[in-house]
């Protein structure tokens, strides 16, 4: 289920500082093993919060992941 995959990833990016650092260093590598569609994976790699929101990412998460938040 994409809604679960996208939002659990956003939640982890927000709450897990080490994971966020790995993502910031190499997003594609950090996402290996996550059950994302190609479009979802591309949106995360591009840090495109608007697209992630369109794909089901909850607004309050896309507005509050440190360093990646849309405002």
């Amino acid at each position, binding site marked *: 289920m994409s809604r679960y995959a996208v939002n659990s990833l956003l939640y982890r990016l927000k709450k897990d500082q080490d994971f966020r650092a790995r993502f910031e260093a190499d997003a594609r590598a950090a996402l290996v093993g996550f059950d994302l569609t190609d479009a979802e994976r591309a949106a995360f790699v591009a840090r495109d*919060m608007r697209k992630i929101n*369109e794909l089901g990412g*909850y*607004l309050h998460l896309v*507005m*509050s992941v440190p360093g990646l938040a849309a405002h």
Partner: protein
Amino acid sequence: MGKIVFAGAMSHVLDPDYYQRACGDDGRQKVTACMAEIARMGERFTATRPDALIVVADDHLNAFSFNAVPALCVRIGRTVPRMKQDHAEAFDAVLDHMPDEYPLHEDLANQILEKGLDAGFDLAMSWEAPVDHAFLSPVNTMHGTRPIPPLVPIWVNSFVAPQPTPRRCFDFGRHIARVVAAGPWKVGIIATGGLSHFPELSLPRVGETDTVFDRKLIHWMEAGEHEPLRNLGVDELHKTGEHEFLNWMVLLGAVTPARAQVRYFGELPRINLAAVEWSLP
């Protein structure tokens, strides 16, 4: 015999710097005015010498992740911590300077849970969930440096579809009122969030509000006309950005048929700020 001695509802990002960044000088001026009214509401609440304060608010995907999303959840235990977020941004940064821990009113929380079972409310409970700005921004603004009475935090799932209906939230509020009436305590209740903002939870629509819909809600609350409010649909709340009005619906059920008095209403591009207090018998 117990009594609800205070009821109020208010916006819950109460931070001049946040609104300066989001809306410029107008944002700072309006939230400062709104906070002043909420502080005065807090003084009136403290003057009732309350035993507990029920806070009905929503989670912003902070307390609950996607392991479980409770429709209605009561916080139990002795104390509750504020949410901690490293490198907090936006509404999370509002919490940074607030006290770390708050007392809870465990007896009242347990009664809401236990009596709920016979009243048709199988509520979720949490011993661990922290509280975010939705709870603590209003509570701290109301109290300033005065002691905060024991809290009963209650979460309503305002954002993760499918949400509870406005009617269900109202009926839950009536349950709270019956529990308070049967107990020995003087209790305040606040509902937080709103009014309209973030329609459809869509990032491109951040910056839109629905003032016409806000004024309709306010009219019904001022008139004590609660039936049209009970008949609102979750879809309607989603489209207009009134998701957090579900919290207000719980409060309305707790105080019905009391009438609301608007202490503050201010339009901003990002959100319409509000502070409302009910005249209780």
